[in-house]
């Protein structure tokens, strides 16, 4: 018995070694993406196929995880030698990844044409401390989507320009009995809630950190949370928003059960697809509203970039793959679920065809993008804020107290 056990272990080790070592000359790179919002899995696979056709000596192994797993997977893969070569990263992580040397500094590899061609707002996605840690890929913010048919039935002429107006219009819809709870948000205890909150913070002119200290517990930061709580308590917001992620919001909106919804770019073309959506052709999109005297629109920077990991054994091929994926040609071809990072694409009729409304909203929204705080301790800050948002919504704490506690627990 001992012998068979030894044999089994030996076989295991040998086979393991055989699998781990590169068997052929062609270069194999592993890339990590997310299966959520923005480009669909099918899009990414198609783009990658185009790349490998053009570069037959490189094969790309694709891996998709939910957004919630993206950060942890990337960090964990650092521990091993042969993890991912290319990773997708959110705008909030470069500070942490740079500090912990997860990503390679690619400042020198970026050509002047790239620098001038890509929208300045997109670059903030990959920058930390004056250096660039990858290429922006998904340029995204949260827009206000509305159901044209419901607004029309309620006698509303134009979508709201301010958050106060949004509340009024929602009340009209509610009072007319068109929908019991007209607004849908993604307020689950997750990063999604912070994106909605940040949108409101930008509208109220608030800020997160000043001189290294949290300041969201007063001013615009507090106003933003108060708005969320009021909207929730008044019954204008779908109470289930507190367990929604983006996909739940899309499901509700597509089913015609929300008049207003805050969501990313990708919802526009998906909700307009009659195959899957009951509201196809009735989808309106505008930049998220502003606040009288403080702002005209609001937006959160929800962009993401592609970077080369410091453990990659094929950084050159990895970079080649990234430049292909982020090239204007590739991005223009797949501009339905995520808009290009390239400035001139927005005036390209091939890109805007059939989604003129979205492009118009994007031109305003993308210019107003407000960043979530840049700090290596972002995860802790975000977790503390998520708790504050949920406790306030559930009435377990007053918004000012909840935010004060969050500031204390933020690790800053």
């Amino acid at each position: 018995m001992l012998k068979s056990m030894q044999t089994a272990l030996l076989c295991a080790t040998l086979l393991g070694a055989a699998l781990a070592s590169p068997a052929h000359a062609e270069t194999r790179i592993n890339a990590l993406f997310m299966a959520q919002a923005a480009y669909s899995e099918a899009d990414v696979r198609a783009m990658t196929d185009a790349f490998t056709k053009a570069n037959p000596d490189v094969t790309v192994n694709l891996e998709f995880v939910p957004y919630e797993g993206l950060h942890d997977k990337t960090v964990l893969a650092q521990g091993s030698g042969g993890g991912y070569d290319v990773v997708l990263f959110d705008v909030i992580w470069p500070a942490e990844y740079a500090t912990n040397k997860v990503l390679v500094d690619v400042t020198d590899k970026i050509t002047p044409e790239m620098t001038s061609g890509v929208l300045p707002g997109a670059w903030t996605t990959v920058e930390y401390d004056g250096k660039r840690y990858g290429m922006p890929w998904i340029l995204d913010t949260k827009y206000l989507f509305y159901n044209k048919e419901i607004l029309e039935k309620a006698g509303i002429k134009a979508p709201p320009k301010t958050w106060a107006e949004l509340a009024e219009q929602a009340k009209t819809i509610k009072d007319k009995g068109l929908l019991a709870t007209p607004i849908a948000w993604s307020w689950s205890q997750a990063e999604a809630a912070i994106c909605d909150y940040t949108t409101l913070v930008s509208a109220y002119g608030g800020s997160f950190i000043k001189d290294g200290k949290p300041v969201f517990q007063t001013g615009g930061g507090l106003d933003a949370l108060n708005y969320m709580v009021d909207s929730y308590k008044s019954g204008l917001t779908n109470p289930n928003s507190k367990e929604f992620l983006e996909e739940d919001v899309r499901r509700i909106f597509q089913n015609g059960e929300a008049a207003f919804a805050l969501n990313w770019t990708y919802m526009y073309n998906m909700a307009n697809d009659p195959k899957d959506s009951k509201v196809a052709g009735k989808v309106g999109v505008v930049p998220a509203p502003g606040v009288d005297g403080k702002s005209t629109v609001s937006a959160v920077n929800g962009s993401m970039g592609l970077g080369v990991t410091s453990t990659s054994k094929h950084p050159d091929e990895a970079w080649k793959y990234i430049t292909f994926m982020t090239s204007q040609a590739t991005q223009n071809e797949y501009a339905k679920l995520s808009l290009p990072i390239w400035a001139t694409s927005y005036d390209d009729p091939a890109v805007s065809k059939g989604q003129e409304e979205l492009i118009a909203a994007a031109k305003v929204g993308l210019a107003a993008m407000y960043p979530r705080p840049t700090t290596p301790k972002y995860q802790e800050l975000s977790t503390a804020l998520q708790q504050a948002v949920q406790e306030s919504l559930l009435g377990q704490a007053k918004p000012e107290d909840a935010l004060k506690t969050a500031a204390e627990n933020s690790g800053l």
Partner: protein
Amino acid sequence: MTSNWLTTRAWFLMLPLLIVMIAIIGWPLVDTVRLSFTDARLVGTEGSFVGFDNYVKILSGTNFQRTLVTTFWFAVLSVALEMVIGVLAALLLNQQFYGRSVLRALMILPWALPTVVNATLWRLIYNPEYGALNAMLMQFGMIEGYRSWLGEPGTALASLIIADCWKNFPLVALIALAALQAVPRDITAASMVDGAGAWSRFRFVIMPYLAGPLMVALVLRTIEAFKVFDIIWVMTRGGPANSTRTLSILVYQEAFSFQRAGSGASLALIVTLLVTVLAVAYAALIRKSAGAS
């Protein structure tokens, strides 16, 4: 054969098990203990020695205390519910009725369902907009409007416990059933002749046969409930407002999301210590009940 030789032979037979366990469990555990006294981060810094700082910080923090209470309630309520329903189901399955063998075979269904599938299934059932639970209760007129089962702190933990219990009570039932079938028929028959009531028959005739196997099930389930991760990770990730965050989720957050490998390790060891204390207490109970019967 001398007892010395027997002992040597025993050790030799145990060698494969011990080697595997020391390599894959022993060494990482030692390393975790080392990490727990450092401020090491998951990537980047190796960390330096900080003594008991991590432990002091965790034990005095409200996060740990709140999470401990949540874990305690989850473990106690889900295990208690599983034991009671499991034994009742076993008593039923030991009766004669049409389709008994079919029902006995079906008992394995929930338990064989992978935890992640179970969690996903119940998340769909509890879905606030399109879930089957809301639809069913509404059609029976038991609720006024759709409810957010996993979104309210008042119902989230209870909903998780029900999902966990549904999956695990069949295990208790199968164990108890096997024990029941070992009860000699003539003994129960004799007690019937003696005119013993149903309860006293259960308590004094059947229970002694059940006690041992049930204790085993109780220990296993309690330990598992204290370590619970999967079902909560899939269903709520600890929300809403951290009302379902258990110790394992907290450790994951500390060590992986926040990358504080050092304090994550201390927290993990505190959890380990708690589970150990529980298990030792149970072991003492088992020994006592074994001695009594």
